[in-house]
């Protein structure tokens, strides 16, 4: 190269600019609320989190994961070697050779990425992201050529002014994207913010195979409840938004997006980025929010700033209320962004500060406050369904093995069939069981997802106070929503350790009825006839599967009846929501289709005549689909039909 010092000066200049950008960006995050994070431990855990947890998610897409490993791995290695070779001037042929290999690896990876960009799927963002593979290739080629002389492949000083110009341009182009752009808001921001997000994640329990799905309690009594402005988020939530790679995996999985409701998780996160950095969404190059039944908003019309109220101009409230909190986006996100937390945080502001829960939301919340159940039934009629069930009350028994948490299904005639079926099964297995009866209250799931954390916390505290009077080892419920609240969300409010100390001294086991029944079957306490050859599929409830990782027990139960389950294309952790979660049927944001109809289409596609479910909400939603359609039954109902009762 004609001027030897030029590349190193360029590299150092861009590096310095990148550092400046990094500090500026970090200051944007620091506008958020304080949150205690173990910085050192987080940074130390970063490599493992990246290589293991994040890769585990990315590896679901083999093509992309391998391309990414080659490209990113090649780039990180190359960059280190570039610094050594070209900036610090370590002249070592071996080092230079290694750099060439790394660049080659990166080049191959970038080629595959470029290939995918030839015909990108709709979920991918375009715009600057179309440029990225070219920048990567430019980097690889430029430094490859630049390194050739040092590796001794070409003699030193090869090249003329023209080549120097071209290579300098290459350095500027590629490093502007890859270093400068990383901290100044280019596509490569994902690497910078993403790495830090992994290190300082708000839910570190998620790494290492853990699960952390319970919503964090809202602080009550301050100047503002919930998130009004981007600066009301915790700082590491803001950091998390910045980590988004706009891969659109969330968009592809989101049931509300598919139904044409005005929600696109990717756009939402990008709007949060607009909010934290200020400006408009004019540069967003992905799919917009579906229009729903209103008018689609033109790009650029959404304006935000760290101290501007989000729902006043940046995001429409309807977008927030479209979410079913099914967590499909979170499950799918390779950057481990917590969309649902953010949505519920913003809902809290709309409900607790604005009082604008849409449609029947306000009424439902008022009912919950006045009667402890969402439909305003007399609290004294909670046990009417069990009039003929001969179920003992905790009040009379004081101590039992199993406490059956009935949930608000007690008021609904359809859900009562599930409850009765489950009681029959428990009686057949001679389980030592009791219910709370009229002392039970709504678990608070709906109130919390509708953003009224005050009511949730009040219900949780009162429920815990009731539970603290009695002794039991297990809580079993047929409602996955109650199951989730009791298992994952009550612990934040359980100051007296009611659930961490059961009758036997060990922590109270909270179980879904399918898990519990599966234990009973394994112990040989229940015997069933084989099920006739009906083609059957199983719908994973979000709050059982994604929220609590229970995919197997329901399937094992069905298999124990000799049923061969025909799985739907979307099952297990990719199960599509029924549309009934997160208060979505209450807020009822119009779309082009109904989520339940789409889910039923998934069922019909398998040719199943019967769909097994493990949730009363799913049952209600799927049965709401116009007939003819496959029959919907809770697993307890299917089991009770095959039960062989011992005759004495």
């Amino acid at each position: 190269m004609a001027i030897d010092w030029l590349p190193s000066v360029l590299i150092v200049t861009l590096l310095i600019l990148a550092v400046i950008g990094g500090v500026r960006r970090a200051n944007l995050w620091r506008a958020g609320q304080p949150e205690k994070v173990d910085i050192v431990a987080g940074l130390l855990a970063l490599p493992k989190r990246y290589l293991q947890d994040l890769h585990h998610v990315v590896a679901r897409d083999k093509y992309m994961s391998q391309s990414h490993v080659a490209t990113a791995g090649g780039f990180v290695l190359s960059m280190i070697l570039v610094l050594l070779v070209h900036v610090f001037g370590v002249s070592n042929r071996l080092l230079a050779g290694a750099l060439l290999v790394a660049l080659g690896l990166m080049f191959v990876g970038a080629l595959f990425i470029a290939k995918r960009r030839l015909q990108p799927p709709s979920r991918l963002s375009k715009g600057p992201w179309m440029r990225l593979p070219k920048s990567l290739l430019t980097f690889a080629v430029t430094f490859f050529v630049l390194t050739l002389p040092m590796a001794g492949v070409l003699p030193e000083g090869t090249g003329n002014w023209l080549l120097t110009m071209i290579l300098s341009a290459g350095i500027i182009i590629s490093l502007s994207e890859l270093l400068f752009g990383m901290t100044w808001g280019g596509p490569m921001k994902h690497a910078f913010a993403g790495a830090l997000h992994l290190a300082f994640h708000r839910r570190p329990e998620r790494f290492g195979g853990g699960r952390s799905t319970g919503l964090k309690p809202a602080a009550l009594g301050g100047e503002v409840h919930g998130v009004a402005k981007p600066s009301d988020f915790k700082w590491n939530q803001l950091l998390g938004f910045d980590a988004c790679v706009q891969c659109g995996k969330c968009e592809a999985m989101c049931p509300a997006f598919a139904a044409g409701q005005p929600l696109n998780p990717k756009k939402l996160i990008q709007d949060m980025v607009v909010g934290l950095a200020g400006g408009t969404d004019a540069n967003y190059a992905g799919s917009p929010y579906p229009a729903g039944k209103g008018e689609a908003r033109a790009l650029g019309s959404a304006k935000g700033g760290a101290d501007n109220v989000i729902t006043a101009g940046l995001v429409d409230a309807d977008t927030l209320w479209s979410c079913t909190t099914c967590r499909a986006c979170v499950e799918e996100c390779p950057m481990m962004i917590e969309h649902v937390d953010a949505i519920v945080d913003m809902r809290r502001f709309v409900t607790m500060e604005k009082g604008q829960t849409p449609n029947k939301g306000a009424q439902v919340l008022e009912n919950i406050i006045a009667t402890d159940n969402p439909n305003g039934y007399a609290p004294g009629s909670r046990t009417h369904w069990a009039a003929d069930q001969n179920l003992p009350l905790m009040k009379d028994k004081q101590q039992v093995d199993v406490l059956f948490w009935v949930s608000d299904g007690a008021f609904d005639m359809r859900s009562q069939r599930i409850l009765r079926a489950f009681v029959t099964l428990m009686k057949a297995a001679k389980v030592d069981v009791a219910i709370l009866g009229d002392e039970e209250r709504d678990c608070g799931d709906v109130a919390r997802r509708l953003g009224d954390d005050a009511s949730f916390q009040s219900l949780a505290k009162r429920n815990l106070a009731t539970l603290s009077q009695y002794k039991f080892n297990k809580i079993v419920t047929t409602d996955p929503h109650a199951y989730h609240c009791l298992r994952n969300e009550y612990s934040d409010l359980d100051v007296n350790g009611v659930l961490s100390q059961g009758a036997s001294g060990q922590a109270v086991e909270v179980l879904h009825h399918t898990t519990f029944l599966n234990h009973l079957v394994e112990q040989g306490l229940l015997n069933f006839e084989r099920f006739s050859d009906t083609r059957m599929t199983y719908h994973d409830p979000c709050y059982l599967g994604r929220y609590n990782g229970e995919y197997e027990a329901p399937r094992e139960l069905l298999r124990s009846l000799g049923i061969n389950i025909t799985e739907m294309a979307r099952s297990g952790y990719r199960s599509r929501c029924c549309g009934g979660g997160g208060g979505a049927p209450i807020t009822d944001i119009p779309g082009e289709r109904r989520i339940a109809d789409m889910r039923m289409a998934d069922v019909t596609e398998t040719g199943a005549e019967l769909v097994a479910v493990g949730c009363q909400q799913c049952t209600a939603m799927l049965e709401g689909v116009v007939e003819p359609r496959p029959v919907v039954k809770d697993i307890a109902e299917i089991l009770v039909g095959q039960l062989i009762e011992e005759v004495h």
Partner: protein
Amino acid sequence: MPLNIVSLVSVGRHPQSGRSRRAEQDGRAVEMGLKLAGQQLSVVHVGNPDEPVLRQYAGMGLSSLTVLKQADRFDAVPVLQRYLEQKNIDIVLTGVRSESGESSGMVPYLLAHALGWPVVARVADIVCVEKGEAQVLLALPRGQRRAVRVALPFIASLDLAAPPARQSAFGVGLRAKIETIESIGEVDQIRVDWQEAEAKPRAKRLKTVKAKTAAERFKAATAKPQGDAGKVLINETTQQKAQAIFDLLLEEKVIR
């Protein structure tokens, strides 16, 4: 000139749970007040300033709320009268009947009589206030409405047909200021001797047969009860089926 409007609120009672709540009609009185006066609205309660239900009213967007403090057994009307006389008020809004206490619905009338104002009962909407006169819609049974004009100042009691109260926002209610005014109460003397008990369910009136003789009584006792199962028309002509429906509608007098 902005209107000077006062909404009177009381502690409600949920019919199913019996728990205290924002009273349905009083909530509508606040809603109507907010519609007419916006933030200028003053909301007044007589009773205990620490009552948590007041926060539910305040959550509708009130920055403050006035409580004329006095014990339950005291009569609310004299206190309110003295309070309202001091202010230069255009409209006082109340519910038709409270959900707790005596539920007599007399408060608006007594206040109106004491202040010498007209009272409009069962208001569905106050359409507009112009030139010292309000255009009011009264709620009649089964969704019917009557328009009435009334000069300011007046007292209006809000019917359930009025626009429902907006959602109460927890945070706003929590931060609202509750201004307490100590008041000299008068013990409600008449009420002292009353006995209160949980409402007994009222037996439905049976169809009594005025039978003078054993034979008539026998006939009445053994008569086949009518209308157990519904009638199903399948094979009749369309015209006959439609006629059957139409006849039932006429019989029920829903078509006039």
